[in-house]
């Protein structure tokens, strides 16, 4: 991928990275949206959607509670979607390799958010006297610079991740040894386990929840039979 091709992806990564915490938290940063949008940028929305759905299942495990540290899925979804959507069709290693790249990006990007928050705290400490004096300018500068830095953070993470993972994924896909069905099956099993485990973690305290899940499975079975 040339720099000209990466720049729109980086801009998308920046905007969706911003959505995770800073603005507007409309969940356009969820992987199911981010990866699909990146796929659309590449000209392959269904490809972006496929990896987006897999990433979304895994992302169910990490809900953004308060000050907890979690992976950043906005930029990671963009990287995963762009990488997968740009692979030729029918390559067995494409999905696992791109998913691995997206998960690593999410982890690194989560760390970059922690760094950004520390940086903002540092700026806050330097302007504390002005803030305590009720300076509007100091508050606006702190707030708007925090958002600008977050935008920059998302762009940098996306550019660096694309620069590292685009050639790496290409190389992995070229020498991939496992057969297509098995490769997809492993990815799907991983995603299903994480999603199921996440749902249990989140909802296990809700009374009768297993019955509702079982009812859902029954509906699925009925659909399977009648189709």
């Amino acid at each position, binding site marked *: 991928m040339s720099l000209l091709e990466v720049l729109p992806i980086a801009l998308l990564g920046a905007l969706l990275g911003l959505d995770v915490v800073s603005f507007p938290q409309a969940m356009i940063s969820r992987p199911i949206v981010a990866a699909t949008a990146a796929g659309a940028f590449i000209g392959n929305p269904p490809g972006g959607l496929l990896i987006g759905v897999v990433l979304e299942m895994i992302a169910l495990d990490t809900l953004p509670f308060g000050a907890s540290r979690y992976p950043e899925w906005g930029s990671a979804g963009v990287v995963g979607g762009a990488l997968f959507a740009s692979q030729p069709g029918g390559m067995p290693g494409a999905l696992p390799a791109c998913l691995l790249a997206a998960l690593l990006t999410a982890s690194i990007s989560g760390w970059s958010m922690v760094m950004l928050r520390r940086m903002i705290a540092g700026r806050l400490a330097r302007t504390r006297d002005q803030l305590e004096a009720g300076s509007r300018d100091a*508050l606006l500068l702190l707030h708007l610079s925090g958002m600008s830095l977050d935008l920059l953070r998302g762009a940098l993470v996306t550019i660096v991740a694309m620069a590292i993972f685009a050639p790496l994924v290409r190389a992995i896909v070229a020498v991939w*040894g496992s057969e297509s069905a098995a490769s997809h*099956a492993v990815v799907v099993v991983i995603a299903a386990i994480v999603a199921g485990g996440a749902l249990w973690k989140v909802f296990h305290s809700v009374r009768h929840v297993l019955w*509702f899940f079982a009812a859902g499975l029954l509906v699925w079975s009925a659909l399977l039979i009648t189709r």
Partner: protein
Amino acid sequence: MTTVSPARDLPLRVKLGMYFRLFALQGSWNYETLNGTGVGFAIEPALRLLPGGLNGQQYRAALARESRYFNAHPYLAGVAVGALTRAELDGVEASRIERFRTALAGPLGSVGDRLVWASWLPFCSLVAIGVYGAGGTALAVVGTFLLLYNAGHFLLRAWGLRIGLSRGLNVASALGNPVLRQGPVYIGRAAALVGGVALPLALQRIVGPGRVLVGGIIVAAFIGIVLLALLRERAEGWRIALGVLAVFVLYSVLT
């Protein structure tokens, strides 16, 4: 006993300004003041109405006070922003406002986390995954998710600001709203129901039609889910996924 002063009717442009700023509430989120500076940022347009305006002593004192440490779920922070605006404009004494801020932070965080992050978000994700499993196009899947999720999101922020502005320091009773108290239970059950249909449908679509693998995948997934559920908080599923995937990729490259 707390007295309620008549609701102060803010100009529409001020209310809209505050509502828009609520979406950027976490723009300067940090580990020291959490979203305190964001509350100051969101409340600032209303503080200009204080006697003396932008250069007045009251404005500066209120802005400093409202920009200190605060923690709330971002979608429900509007409740605090509205209530604190009303208190500042009604001239409530500073010590009382500070006590109110401290008291309100915890409940707004826990109620919002339960309702939004641990209920509404997973529910909307599962619905979108279900639309994908049912054969939906990219536009249908993304559109369903964004419209459904943000219908709740935008309404919750607007409700929070409105209730805060109208009730002022008496806003705590609004947290007893049935949607906030019982919502997570009902949404949780709905999410479980949707998850039971959506996850296998999506897995089928990813693997492809007519594959005998589907049965094996579901059995393997079921065993994995039980093991992961037994581990509970001791294991993070996404980290396990990363590790297993890395090993699988390495194996597939080396063989």
